[in-house]
């Protein structure tokens, strides 16, 4: 099945992807994918390594891949726009590997996140808000981000993305390589910013259990196509998902 089960009318969806195909260095990685991210919702993207999850996020922010098909953000077509334009429209992408500026300080990393916003008090207040969300980072504000642990760098990466004041936050495997306690903290923060700020989230995860607990809607990609889609709750009890991704 490659059609997404849309929850309601098109206006409810902040992001609509239709018929997206993508190639990375001449290999076809995505083959006609349809997904939606509901306004104010959390959508999870699951699948094995190589299924195309990272490529899908890269296609949306138009980084490193060539795409065909339609991508609409808040009704506006964005396919073909350069990645900095996509970011300025309000889509913040936390890439796989986090993309932290290891040689800049933690505070400079946050300032880079806000670089497209007008200078001033708002940015300063947001930086303090980030330190309130991730207290560990405040201790390192003047230190090079490369000195931080993996979990802390993940927090820096998320905070940097949030400094953009995005409408859609996309995360590529935020739990990768992190201790379970740290992962739980990070996912709690994600849930919190979604509840309090209404920020829409699209999260790619290998850790299906975690992702399905957080998300309301989920897709499973297999070999570049959407294999399963539906509300997170029903995917949790879907025997195919349980066997392949939840290890049950």
């Amino acid at each position: 099945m490659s059609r997404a089960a849309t929850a309601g009318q098109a206006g409810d969806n902040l992001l609509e992807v239709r018929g997206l195909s993508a190639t990375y260095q001449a290999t076809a990685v995505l083959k006609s994918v349809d997904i939606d991210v509901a306004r104010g919702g959390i959508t999870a993207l699951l699948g094995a390594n190589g299924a195309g999850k990272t490529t899908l996020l890269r296609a949306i922010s138009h980084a490193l891949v060539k795409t065909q098909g339609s991508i609409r953000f808040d009704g506006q077509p964005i396919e073909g726009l350069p990645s900095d334009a996509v970011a300025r429209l309000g889509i913040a992408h936390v890439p796989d590997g986090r993309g932290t500026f290891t040689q800049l300080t933690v505070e400079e990393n946050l300032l880079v996140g806000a670089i497209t916003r007008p200078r001033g008090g708002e940015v300063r207040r947001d930086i303090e808000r980030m330190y309130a969300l991730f207290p560990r980072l405040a201790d390192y504000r003047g230190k090079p981000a490369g000195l931080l642990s993996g979990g802390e760098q993940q927090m820096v990466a998320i905070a940097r993305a949030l400094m953009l004041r995005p409408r859609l936050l996309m995360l590529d495997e935020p739990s990768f390589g992190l201790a379970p306690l740290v992962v739980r903290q990070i996912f709690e923060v994600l849930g919190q910013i979604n509840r309090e700020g209404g920020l829409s989230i699209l999260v790619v995860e290998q850790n299906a259990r975690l992702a399905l607990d957080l998300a309301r809607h989920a897709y499973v990609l297999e070999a570049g196509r959407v294999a399963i889609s539906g509300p997170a709750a029903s995917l949790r009890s879907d025997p195919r998902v349980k066997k392949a991704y939840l290890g049950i």
Partner: protein
Amino acid sequence: MTEFAQQVAAGFVNGCIYAMLALALVMIYRATNHVNFAQGEMAMFSTYIAWSLLEAGLPYWAAALAAVAFGFVAGTLVERVALRPLHGAPLLSIVTVFVALMIIIQSAAGLVFGHESHSVASPFDGWGRWGQGLLSGHALGTVAVTLAVLASMSAFFRFTRLGLAMRAAALNPLSSSLSGVNVNRVLMIGWGVAGAIGAIAGLLAAPVVFLGPHMMGGIMIYGFAAAVVGGIDSPPGAILGGLALGIGENLLGAYVTGNELKLTIALAVMFAILVVRPRGLLGGKAIQRV
């Protein structure tokens, strides 16, 4: 002892010019991982622009400002027209373009302005002599301008948003894009700044070495050597390398090898560093992500 002091002082002043050129090279290298072999010729052409305006009767500061502006614009054009289309091309192609630019600009200067040398008066001649006759007005002016350039560059990169964007784009272009930075535009501006710095170095060198199409050839060798010695990715290294080379070549030339071999010394130093410690005195190894 006075001769020693004189050699050191003169070497320090020369070192300022080498340091500025090395700084421009380091800036481009950090942003693009490429060495701008045409840096000297661009500086020379900008200096010619100033000279033409001076000959036409403009006051020095207007001519100098125009030359620096020209250097900036020329730098942005080089990025936009000659280098951006080559993004992702093999290294050899890019180096070829740089060398071609070097030759083209030099020939163009000869064509447009002629091949004779011209003496150029220094704007600092009225400053008299300082430090018990150690430093001429021009020498002092050179040091003052170099300090001003270094201070403003440092402030620019540390305290302005554009400076932060440039540093970020050089460190991680993809992450910068994802945060909304237009990496191409930032790169172009960086090239403009390097071109402007080159113009300033050319303006400072012209009263000393006489203006001509080959004016910057020897100086650039010192500039490259300074960048290599200091570390091609280190701004403080560029300054250290420039000053060390300036003072060192003077002392070696005066007391050890004689003046004819000064350029050879610079080349020999560059060679030695590349063999023994390729990253230079202050250059860093890249931080590996764990």
